[in-house]
C-alpha cells in the first residue's frame, strides 16, 4: 500500500441515464482509488460503463445522464456537485483526459501551436505567447515527436494516427496534471505504434508522478502497464485488486471467463473458454447479480445483488460463489 494519500478516491459513484425507455444505470456503486505515480486499469467490454465512469469523474456526463450519488475526492476536494467553473479550472489543468479518437480531441481547422498555446493560456493567462510556445514545443518533444518546432505549425490532418495521439497526449500533459484519465487511447493504433505510446505514457507517469487511469477492453495491455485493475461488468466493479492477483488468481467467474477468452500462448488450436450469451442491456436490469444469466455457478442466492466483499486485503469482489483461489484457475476451461 502507498503511504501517501491517494490522488483520487471514488466512493459509491452512481451515474444514471434517465431515458424515455427507463432508467439506465450505467455506473452503479463504483469505488476505487489511485495514488501518485500509480496506474489503475479499468477493464470491461462495451457497455460495461467504463467510459461513463471516466466521464463522471470530471463532470463530463451530458443529459439525460446525471451523477446521482457517491463521491469523487480529488486531492481531498469533492468533485461531485462542484460548480461548473471549478471543474472547468481543473479539467485540462490538474486533471487531463485522453480520448480514443485523437481526431475528436483536436480541432481540424486550427494549427497545433494555436491549440497548445490556447491550452496553456486558458489556465494561466499570465503566461506570454512565447513561453507558452516553448512549453508546447517541449511537450511535443517529450512525447517523441521529431522536429517539434516544425510540427507545431502543422494541422491535425497532416499527422498520422499515432502522431495525432501523441499530440493529444502532449496537450493533456501540458499543464503537468496530477491525474490523467486515458479512455482507450491505443485501441485504434497498430501494435508497434501502441508500443510506442505505452512507452511514452509509462515514462511520463514515472517522471511527473501523475496518477493514471487507463480505460480499456484489452486485458493484455493492462497486464503490462497497470499496477491495479478494476474489472467492470454492467456498471459495477465485479472484482478489483493488484494486477498480479486479479490476472493470476481471478475470483469472479466473469474475470475467469474473460481471461480464458484471450488467445494466448501454449493453448494454440484449442478451443477458447467462452462466456455464453452476451452483455445484458442495462435498461431495467433485473435485480441481483447481472452476470448470473451467463454464469455457470449461479443459483438462487444470485437473485440478490452480491455485496462488495474483501476476500483478501487489497482486493474487492462482488460474488457469492467465487472461484476458489489457487494458481492456474484462469486457465481452466
Amino acid at each position, binding site marked *: 500500500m502507498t503511504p501517501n494519500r491517494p490522488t483520487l478516491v471514488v466512493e459509491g459513484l452512481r451515474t444514471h441515464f434517465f431515458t424515455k425507455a427507463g432508467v439506465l444505470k450505467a455506473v452503479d456503486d463504483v469505488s476505487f482509488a489511485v495514488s501518485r505515480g500509480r496506474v489503475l486499469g479499468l477493464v470491461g*467490454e*462495451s457497455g460495461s460503463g467504463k467510459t461513463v465512469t471516466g466521464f463522471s469523474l470530471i463532470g463530463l456526463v451530458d443529459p439525460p445522464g446525471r451523477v446521482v450519488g457517491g463521491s469523487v475526492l480529488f486531492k481531498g476536494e469533492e468533485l461531485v456537485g462542484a460548480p461548473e467553473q471549478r471543474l472547468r479550472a481543473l479539467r485540462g489543468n490538474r486533471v487531463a483526459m485522453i480520448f480514443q479518437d485523437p481526431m475528436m480531441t483536436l480541432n481540424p481547422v486550427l494549427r497545433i501551436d494555436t491549440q497548445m498555446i490556447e491550452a496553456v493560456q486558458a489556465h494561466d493567462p499570465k503566461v506570454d505567447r512565447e513561453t507558452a510556445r516553448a512549453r508546447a514545443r517541449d511537450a511535443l518533444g517529450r512525447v517523441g515527436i521529431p522536429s517539434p518546432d516544425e510540427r507545431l505549425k502543422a494541422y491535425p490532418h497532416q499527422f*498520422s*494516427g*499515432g*502522431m495525432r495521439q501523441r499530440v493529444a497526449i502532449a496537450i493533456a500533459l501540458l499543464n503537468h496534471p496530477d491525474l490523467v484519465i486515458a479512455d482507450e487511447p491505443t485501441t485504434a493504433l*497498430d*501494435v*508497434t*505504434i*501502441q*508500443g*510506442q505510446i*505505452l*512507452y511514452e505514457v*509509462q515514462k511520463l507517469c514515472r517522471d511527473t508522478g501523475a496518477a493514471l487511469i487507463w480505460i480499456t*477492453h*484489452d*486485458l*493484455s*495491455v493492462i*497486464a*503490462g*502497464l*497497470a*499496477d491495479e485493475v478494476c474489472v467492470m461488468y454492467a456498471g459495477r466493479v465485479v472484482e478489483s485488486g493488484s*494486477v*498480479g492477483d486479479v*490476472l493470476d488468481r481471478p475470483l469472479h467467474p466473469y474475470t475467469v*471467463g*474473460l*481471461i*480464458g*477468452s*484471450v*488467445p*494466448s*500462448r501454449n*493453448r*494454440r*488450436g484449442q*478451443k*477458447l*473458454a*467462452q*462466456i455464453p450469451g*452476451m*452483455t445484458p442491456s442495462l435498461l431495467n436490469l433485473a435485480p441481483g447479480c447481472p452476470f448470473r444469466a451467463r454464469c455457470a455457478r449461479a443459483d438462487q442466492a444470485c437473485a440478490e445483488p452480491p455485496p462488495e466483499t474483501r476476500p483478501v486485503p487489497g482486493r474487492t469482489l462482488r460474488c457469492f460463489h467465487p472461484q476458489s483461489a489457487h494458481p492456474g484457475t484462469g486457465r481452466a476451461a
Partner: protein
Amino acid sequence: MTQPSPILELRDVTKRFVRPLDLAAKIANLFGAGLKSETVHAVDHVSLGVSDGEVVGLVGESGCGKSTLGRIVAGIHRPTTGERLWRGTAIDALPPSEQRAVELKVQMIFQDPMSSLNPRLRVSDIVGEAPVVHGVVPAAERDAYVGELLQRVGLDAAFRRRYPHQFSGGQRARIGIARALAVKPEFLVCDEAVAALDVSIQAQVLNLFMDLRRDLGLTYLFISHDLGVVEHLSDRVIIMYLGRFVEIAPTEELFRAPNHPYTKALLAEVPRLDARKRDFAPVKGEIPSPLNPPPGCHFHPRCPRATARCRAEVPALKEIAPGRWAACHLNDAR
C-alpha cells in the same frame, strides 16, 4: 518437405493502384509543372501457396497491403501482374463460366459486420440471395436452407426475418459468416473478421471458425493485426511489411524464434497477459508511405541492425530452414 499441391496459389503477384492525372494537373503540366501520376505499390511481387485444409495467418500493420492481398485471393481485385492458380490451373486462363465457379469457392468475410450487411435487406435475403442466384439451392428451398445455415453459425433459425440492425455485433459477425458459407466455399478469406468484437464475443467467433474448419474441412487465409488471434488459429504465419512478405514460418517456430528484425519487434510489442508491469521498448518510427517507399529493404529506416547493403539492395525471400522463409540480408552474413 513434400508439400501437397496447393489449393490456391499466387505467383509473383503485384498490385499497383495508380491515380492518373486529372484535367487540372494535365493543364498544369502543359505549363511545365512536371506533375506525375501517383502509384501505390500495395502488393509487391508476392508468391503464396496455401494447402488444402491449412490455416494461414497474414499479419501486418495498417497500410502494409494485407487487405489488398486478401482481396486478390478472393478475386475482388485483379492483380496488376502475376497469376492466380486454383488447384494448379491459372484462373485467368479459364473460360468465364468456370472462372466464376472457381471464384465461388473462395469467399470473404469482412471486418465491419455493420457496413458489410445491407441494412435494408432481411437476413433471409442477405444470406439466401447468392445460393439461389448461383444455383446452389432451388428458390423454393431457400428459406429452409437459410435456417440451416443460421443454426450452423449458432443463431436461431427464426432470426431470418429480421434486419441487420436488430442484432448485436457478434451476431452480425455470424451473419457475415453464414453469408460466406451459403455458396459452399472451400476457402475463406477472413479480413480482420474479429477485430471489431469484444473479447468474450471474439472468443465465441474464433471457436466457431475452428468448428467450421473441423466440420467442413475449410481452408483459411486469416488476415489480422492481432498476433494473439493469429497464433491461436494458424498453422503457418506470414508477416507482411509495406507490400512484401518479410517472413513465413510455421506458427510455433515463428513465435519461438523469429528471424526477421521486424518480426522480432512485432513480437516484443504484443501485450501479453502473462507480462507484468514491463518496460515498453518500442521500435522507432512508423510504417513509411507506400507512395514513396524507402529503397532497398523497406524496413531499414526502423531497423536497429540496418547496414549500407540494406539501404541499397532489396533482400530476397530465402529459405533459411525447412519451411521457413525470411527476407533479410543479415541471414547471409552468418
